[in-house]
């Protein structure tokens, strides 16, 4: 485990950056959760709240960016400290994209016809969101603890999300061919499912950054690239 900096306020700055990222992670996970609930209940009001709350996450990202740049300018971090700040900036960007996708899920909820029976596809999408929320929570915990193994474990769990997505696509294509009157609802579900799948991909980016901070190399596709 790393020891403290001689200049205590330097540790203070780096810890503050980590806290800001943890807070952003929590807000983002919450956005996915709220979007998923809105979808499950086909609740337009709840969906609107998710869309409005996306701004909160954007503000957090801007704050992290400002603070990260300030640390680079005033502390001249090197080695693991430098990797931590750079990766932190990238992670804030990934979290912001994840939150955007949560808001996009909410935006497509009105596409779904209330009279249409969509329980099975919605349940599959809800399962995808539950996976991604757990992945996000776990990867942010891994980041806080500097636990690379935990992060890599999250990285591999994206396969489950991709699996559900592939099956769901097949199901929705079949429904579209049998029920062309409700294309709008089915394409809405495809977009929503795609958002969930992209959330999973961005979470793997977060895991790769945790690996990079500790090891100085990015974990790609189950391999560490040759230097």
């Amino acid at each position, binding site marked *: 485990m790393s020891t403290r*900096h*001689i*200049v*205590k*306020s*330097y540790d203070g700055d780096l810890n503050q950056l980590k806290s800001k990222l943890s807070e952003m992670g929590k807000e983002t996970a919450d956005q996915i959760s709220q979007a998923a609930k809105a979808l499950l209940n086909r609740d337009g009001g709840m969906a609107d709240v998710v869309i409005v709350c996306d701004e909160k996450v954007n503000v957090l990202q801007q704050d992290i960016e400002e603070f990260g*740049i*300030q640390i680079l*300018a*005033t*502390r*001249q971090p090197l080695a693991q400290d430098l990797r931590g700040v750079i990766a932190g900036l990238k992670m804030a960007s990934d979290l912001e994209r994840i939150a955007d996708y949560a808001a996009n899920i909410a935006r497509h909820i009105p596409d779904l016809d209330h009279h249409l029976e969509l329980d099975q596809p919605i349940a599959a999408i809800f399962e995808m969101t539950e996976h991604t929320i757990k992945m996000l929570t776990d990867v942010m915990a891994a980041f806080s603890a500097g636990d690379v193994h935990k992060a890599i474990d999250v990285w591999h769990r994206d396969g489950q999300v991709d699996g559900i997505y592939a099956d769901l696509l097949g199901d929705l294509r079949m429904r*579209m*061919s049998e029920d*062309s009157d409700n*294309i*709008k609802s089915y*394409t809405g579900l495809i*977009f929503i499912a795609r958002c969930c799948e992209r959330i999973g991909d961005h979470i793997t980016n977060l895991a790769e950054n945790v690996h990079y901070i500790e090891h100085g190399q990015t974990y790609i596709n189950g391999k560490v690239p040759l230097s």
Partner: protein
Amino acid sequence: MVDCIMDTLYQEIADMDKTTENRISHSGAAIERGRTLVARENRETVGNITVKDPRMTCRNVNVYYGEKQAIKNVSLDIGRNEVLAMIGPSGCGKSTFLRCLNRMNDTIESCRVTGQIALDGADIYDKSIDVVPLRAQVGMVFQKPNPFPKSIYDNIAYGPKIHGLAQNKAELDHIVETSLKKAGLWDEVNDSLDHPGTGLSGGQQQRLCIARTIAVNPEVILMDEPCSALDPIATAVIEDLIDELREQYSIAIVTHSMQQASRVSQRTAYFHLGDLIEVGPTDQIFTRPNHQLTEDYITGRFG
């Protein structure tokens, strides 16, 4: 049915295009609104020279060495409980300016200082001011550690003795211990206070000099490149100490290391050929300076 799917998809893509278009036009407008730096030829100070409730105020200060003008009409406040860093290339006047703050320039025969410099509102160049107590109130730490050729104890005790700050030995002992603790040196020397100050390492000697300055209850501590003779670890120890000292004192530090200025200070003042070019919050100076000369200097683009 395929037409229906395609129509829906086209609509979705069209909606996405609109969002993208909005974003592009907004970012274009943002580029047009980009900031302009103050031109190199302009030598008026950029940024806010004043602070709320300053410890020291300097107005229209000029310094001459004989015919040569080293400081040109500089005005600047030093705040309470802040570290103000003064940076700039060699010969820019930053050390000259620092030495005005406790009248160290009086010791240089050819040196003439004009303007007003005040400590807590009182003009330090007033005829009634005795420079000896002034230099206790506004203490200085120099580039090369300069402990007295005395014991560690006597190095610290000397100032309080001559300023009459201790009534008896017990009080003096207390001052010595407190000062060494505040300077982060007590743990290393408390069992060898009778050893010569010159026997300490460079970093320890500098902390001894800081303890010596603290022992006489300063309001302001001036530091003239205090770490340039020290290795990175000793430097970091002093920088951490500066962070702590700021809770009690105002600190003005001259440094030729911009990196040090950015690490330790809350405000930074950039000097260039005797002019105060720019002053501002340290993170603003080092991320978004407003004067072209400041940007040139900190990015290593010297004309």
